[in-house]
C-alpha cells in the first residue's frame, strides 16, 4: 500500500515535470527560433526584453492574450474553438510513451520508471496520436469558413497522410532490429553505443524528412504557405487560439526530436554511462540520461530551425512526388536491406559489425546503381535529342 502511494505521487510529479519541460521548451523555442533566424542572417534578433531578450516569450504571451479573440460570424463556432484545443491536446499526448530516462531508485524498494507509461505498442501510440494531430488543423481550417484556410487544411491532411506511409515503413526496419514496439525496449537494445543510426542510416534520413513534413515545418510548410494561402489553416485565428496552433507546432518539434533520439540515437544512452553508474550510482546516471535525451531532442529542434532558415519551400507537386515516388520506395528498399543485413548475421549469432557494414554498403551500392542508371537514361535521351 505504502509503495503504491509513493509510486503514484512520484509518477504524478514526473508527469508534471515533463509537462512543464515540454511547455517551457516550446515557449523558448519561439525565442530561439527568432535568435537562430537572426544569427543565420547576420542579425542579433530580439534582445530588448530582459538580458539577451530572454523574457521575450513572456512578452509574446502577454501580447497573444491581450489581442482580440475574434471568431468569424459565418464560422462553425464550436469546431472553431475545438481546432486549436485538439492540436494542443495531441501535441502534448505524444510525450507519454517517450522514455525520458532509466529507472530511479526512490528508496524503500520503490523504483520509478522515467517514462509516462511503458505500453507494449509504444511506437504505435506515437503514430496514432500524430495522425490524430492533423484533425486539429483540418477542423480549424474547415470551421473557419474561409477558402484559404480550407485549402491549407486539405494540404495539411494530404501531406500528413502521404508522409505517414514512408515514416511507418522506415520504422518497420527499426522494429525488425529491436523486435518490439515498446519504446523502452527499443532504447534498451541500443544501450552502450549500439545506436540505431549506425544500422539505419537510410532509415534515419527518411524518418527525419518525414518528421519535417509531419510537423509542417519548412521546407514542407505548405499548409501555412504565406505566399499562396495568406496564413493557411490559421488565417482566421487570432489571440491565444492562434498561439495554441503555433505552440503545438513547437511542442511537436520537441517531441519528434525526442522520438528521433529514442529511435535512432540511443534514447537516454550516453558515452561513459557505465563509469557514472559505478562511481555515482544509479540515480545520478539515470538523471544524466534524462539530460542526454533532452539534449539530443533540443539538438534536433535546432536542426529543424537550421533547415527552416536554409531551405525554400517545396512546390506542392514536388512535395507529393518526393513523398510517393521518392521516400516510399526508398523506405521499402530499407526494409529489404535491413532484412538482408539480419540474414547475413543470423548464423554467427548476430555480429553487430557485419550488420552495420551491410547497411552502409547497401546504401552506397543503391546510390551508385541509381546514379549509374540515371546517367545511362540521361545519355540515351541526349542521343535521341541529337539524332
Amino acid at each position: 500500500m505504502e509503495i503504491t502511494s509513493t509510486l503514484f505521487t512520484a509518477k504524478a510529479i514526473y508527469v508534471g515535470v515533463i509537462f512543464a519541460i515540454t511547455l517551457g521548451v516550446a515557449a523558448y523555442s519561439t525565442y530561439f527560433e527568432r535568435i537562430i533566424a537572426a544569427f543565420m542572417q547576420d542579425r542579433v534578433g530580439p534582445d530588448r526584453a530582459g538580458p539577451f531578450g530572454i523574457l521575450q516569450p513572456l512578452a509574446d504571451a502577454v501580447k497573444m492574450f491581450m489581442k482580440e479573440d475574434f471568431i468569424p460570424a459565418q464560422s462553425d463556432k464550436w469546431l472553431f474553438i475545438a481546432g486549436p484545443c485538439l492540436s494542443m491536446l495531441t501535441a502534448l499526448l505524444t510525450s507519454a510513451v517517450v522514455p525520458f530516462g532509466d529507472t530511479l531508485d526512490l528508496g524503500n524498494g520503490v523504483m520509478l520508471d522515467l517514462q509516462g507509461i511503458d505500453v507494449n505498442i509504444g511506437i504505435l501510440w506515437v503514430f496514432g496520436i500524430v495522425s490524430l494531430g492533423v484533425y486539429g488543423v483540418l477542423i480549424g481550417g474547415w470551421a473557419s469558413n474561409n477558402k484559404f484556410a480550407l485549402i491549407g487544411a486539405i494540404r495539411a491532411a494530404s501531406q500528413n497522410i502521404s508522409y505517414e506511409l514512408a515514416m511507418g515503413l522506415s520504422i518497420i526496419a527499426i522494429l525488425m532490429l529491436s523486435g518490439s514496439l515498446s519504446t523502452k525496449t527499443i532504447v534498451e537494445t541500443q544501450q552502450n553505443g549500439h545506436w540505431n543510426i549506425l544500422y539505419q542510416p537510410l532509415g534515419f534520413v527518411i524518418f527525419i524528412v518525414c518528421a519535417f513534413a509531419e510537423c509542417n515545418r519548412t521546407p514542407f510548410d505548405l499548409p501555412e504557405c504565406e505566399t499562396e494561402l495568406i496564413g493557411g489553416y490559421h488565417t482566421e485565428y487570432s489571440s491565444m487560439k492562434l498561439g495554441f496552433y503555433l505552440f503545438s507546432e513547437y511542442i511537436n518539434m520537441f517531441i519528434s526530436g525526442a522520438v528521433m533520439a529514442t529511435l535512432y540515437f540511443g534514447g537516454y544512452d550516453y558515452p561513459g554511462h557505465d563509469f557514472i553508474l559505478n562511481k555515482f550510482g544509479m540515480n545520478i546516471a539515470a538523471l544524466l540520461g534524462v539530460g542526454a535525451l533532452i539534449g539530443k531532442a533540443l539538438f534536433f529542434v535546432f536542426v529543424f530551425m537550421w533547415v527552416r532558415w536554409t531551405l525554400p519551400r517545396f512546390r506542392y507537386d514536388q512535395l507529393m512526388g518526393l513523398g510517393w515516388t521518392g521516400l516510399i520506395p526508398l523506405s521499402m528498399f530499407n526494409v529489404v536491406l535491413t532484412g538482408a543485413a539480419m540474414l547475413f548475421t543470423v548464423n554467427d549469432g548476430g555480429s553487430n559489425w557485419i550488420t552495420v557494414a551491410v547497411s552502409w554498403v547497401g546504401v552506397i551500392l543503391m546510390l551508385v546503381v541509381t546514379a549509374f542508371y540515371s546517367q545511362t537514361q540521361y545519355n540515351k535521351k541526349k542521343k535521341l535529342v541529337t539524332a
Partner: protein
Amino acid sequence: MKLSNKTKVLEQGDMTFAERIYLPAIIGGMGTTLKHFFAKKVTIRYPEQKRYLGPVFRGHHILKRDEDGAERCTACGLCAVACPAEAISMVADERKKGEEKLYREEKYASVYEINMLRCIFCGLCEEACPKQAIYLQHDKMVPVFEDRSQVIFGKDKLVEKMDNRYLREGWK
C-alpha cells in the same frame, strides 16, 4: 559583341543525379547558414551604440563663440533670409559698454530662435553666415522633444558652451 568576359552562358539541361536527390545541395546550404551563424553580426544596437556619421553630417545647430568666448553672431539676419523653411528668427540689440567680453561685434542677437519642427537641416544658414557664427554639428543630433512647447530652441540651447567646444575635422 562582348563588352566584358564576365558573361556566363547558363545551360539548363536535365538535373544530374546529385542534384536530383537534393541532399548534397541541402547539406551545402546548411553549411552556408552555419557559417553565417558564427559570423560577426552587422547590427548596430542603436540607442546604445552609435555609428560615426561622417564629417558632413548636419545635426544640431550651434552658435559659435570666438577664442575669447565672445559670441560671433552679429544678428545680420542672413541666415534667416537664406532659410528655406523660415525656421530662424532673431532680435538684434546694441552692445553696451562692458559687454565686449560677451559679444564680438557692436551688434548682437539678444534673441535667436530656431523652430526645430520647421528646420530641414539643409545647412544653408551655415553657408550664408558671414561671421562663421552658426554651424550644424556633425556629431550631435537634435534631442527628442515630446511636446510642441519644446520645439523652439533659444539661445540657451544653441550657444556654444566654453567647456564643451565644438570642433570639426580639419579645424584647430
